[in-house]
């Protein structure tokens, strides 16, 4: 693992830039634990102040410090993304491994459902969900629903890898030495699949955070919980752009864009590293 990270740092400029961007965002998110005031309280500082040495990113029209608000928001947003990514990884791995290994009718049935979930437009369904739940909606519920829809694309990817693994000799050896299907899948095939899972995790986070921001900006989530989208929602509610309180929108937008580009670059570099041809090309032959 350490060797892998060192190689990536040394040979992949994408990984270097991505890691720095993500480190900055993570630092901001961890600062939330030393915030001087909880994020729900309004009018703790004078409202509408531009960025200054006292209030680095200015203050909002609701009398909150944008910097501390932002650190809570990015923490919650990242937590949301991780939550969706982890849950959907479990589903994607299960479906991908089983579908690829079993083949036949199991595979066909699972992939039909899989293709369906890829195609269905999710946003109207999430909006419908919000419409029914209204104030009862919680971020965990939303994360769960998104995870139920967000695994399909990656399950297909995992399935294709497992299909090629099944055709290799070591699978036959395992089978003849009496390993059960579960053992073969978890002990033999899973390690081959994990690198792909890592790179899809980043992409999945980008996807789910993007959707969450979108929903929150429209006010279709739990708006009392500070998230990036929630901050932009409140800024829009107070017509921040027209009132000239640009820092209320600019800093959340900037932070989420930095997070997105960082995650995306990490995914790209991980992808390049997985592909042996391009790995040889980037590392010049070293491991």
């Amino acid at each position, binding site marked *: 693992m350490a060797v892998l990270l060192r190689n990536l740092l040394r040979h992949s400029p994408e990984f270097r830039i991505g890691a720095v961007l993500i480190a900055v965002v993570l630092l901001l998110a961890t600062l939330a634990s030393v915030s001087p005031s909880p994020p729900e309280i309004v009018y703790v500082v004078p409202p509408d102040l531009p960025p200054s040495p006292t209030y680095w990113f200015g203050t909002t029209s609701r009398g909150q410090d944008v910097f501390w608000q932002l650190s809570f928001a990015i923490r919650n947003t990242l937590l949301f993304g991780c939550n969706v990514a982890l849950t959907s990884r479990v589903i994607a791995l299960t479906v991908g491994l089983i579908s690829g290994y079993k083949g036949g009718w199991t595979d066909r049935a699972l992939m*039909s*459902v899989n*293709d*369906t*979930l*890829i*195609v*269905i*437009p*999710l*946003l*109207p*369904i999430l*909006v*419908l*969900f*919000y*419409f*029914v*739940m*209204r104030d*009862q909606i919680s971020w965990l519920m939303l994360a769960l629903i998104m995870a139920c829809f967000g695994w399909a*694309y990656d399950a297909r990817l995992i399935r294709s890898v497992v299909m090629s693994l099944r055709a290799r000799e070591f699978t036959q050896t395992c089978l003849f030495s009496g390993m059960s299907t579960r053992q073969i899948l978890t002990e033999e095939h899973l390690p081959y699949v994990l690198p792909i899972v890592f790179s899809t995790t980043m992409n999945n986070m*980008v996807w789910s*955070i*993007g*959707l969450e*921001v*979108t929903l929150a*900006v*429209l006010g*279709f989530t739990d708006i009392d919980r500070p998230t990036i989208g929630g901050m932009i929602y409140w800024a829009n509610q107070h017509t921040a*752009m027209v009132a000239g309180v640009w820092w209320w*929108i600019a800093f959340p*937008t900037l932070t*989420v*864009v930095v997070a*997105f*580009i960082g*995650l*995306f*670059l990490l995914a*790209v570099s991980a992808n390049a590293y997985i592909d042996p041809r391009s790995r040889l090309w980037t590392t010049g032959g070293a491991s």
Partner: protein
Amino acid sequence: MSGYAAYVGRRLGQFLLVVFIGINVAYVITHASPIDPVEQSISAVSSYGNTAPGAIEQMRNSLRDLYGLSGTPSEQYLLFWKRILRADFGPSMSAFPTPVATLIGRALPWTVGLLSVSTIVAWGLGNLLGGLAGYYRQSRGLKLMGVIAMGLHPIPYYIVAMLLLIVFGFVWPVLPITGGSTMNLPQTWTPEFVLSVLQHAILPALSLILIGVGSWFLGMRALVSNVLAEEFVLYAELAGVKPWRILTLYVMRNAIVPQVTGLAMSLGGIFNGAVITEKVFGYPGLGSLLVDAVYAGDYGLVLGVTTISILGVSVGVLLIDLTYPLLDPRVKIS
């Protein structure tokens, strides 16, 4: 030909499955949630003053009928399907008594127009530039384009749309930032109206294209550099085929096939983006209709738009799938 028929049959089956699962998800969400939309509406209405108990009871019954919540669960389920197959979502609550179907019919052409044009432009442009970038690897301009595509691609639609809105609405106001056409203009096929529609579509379309181009560009570049390693390309080069001909007819012709599949797979996601773009630019399509319906608490309209979106996206995917054999003759043989 029988191969093609089997292919079409399979695709039709998949289409029906998508619609079936999509509608069922909508049913489960609306009927199995612990929140009763009827009681919510009633408490919202009755909190504003004195309402006679009899009137509340009457309201409860008519709302139950309207939401399709009366009768046993199996009756409700059948009723749900019957309404959808007849495209009958009842009258809209927020634009009473206009039927939901009429409102959707009014909004649909805007969304279909915006979405189809911007998707085709983004797909075509991304593939063309991506193909060039994969073939001419040393070109500085194309490399720069790759970096820009990489930077733009992961940013969510909302942020890009908002940035465009700020730039062209506040910083440099040259383009109309809201609406589908100039107000007070009769919606007939006059040159004036068409021109104003095109002008209003520039910004929403631009935001969709800016986001869309990136992924097609990156995908095509990777595919082309894979195809370039194939032996038939080397053979063509040795045989003295002109580079442009190799790129278009040999390399890109082969690389375009997975990109068509990719287009069909990403249509749902592109539609999500259109919903947001429409809301940001106040474009009078399905997206604005959906969001406004939620704000207005219009149950029939929300359900109607959701169903129509699922149906519309699956039809789009089916159409792309049906043209696929034209590009990949292998489908006909197997």
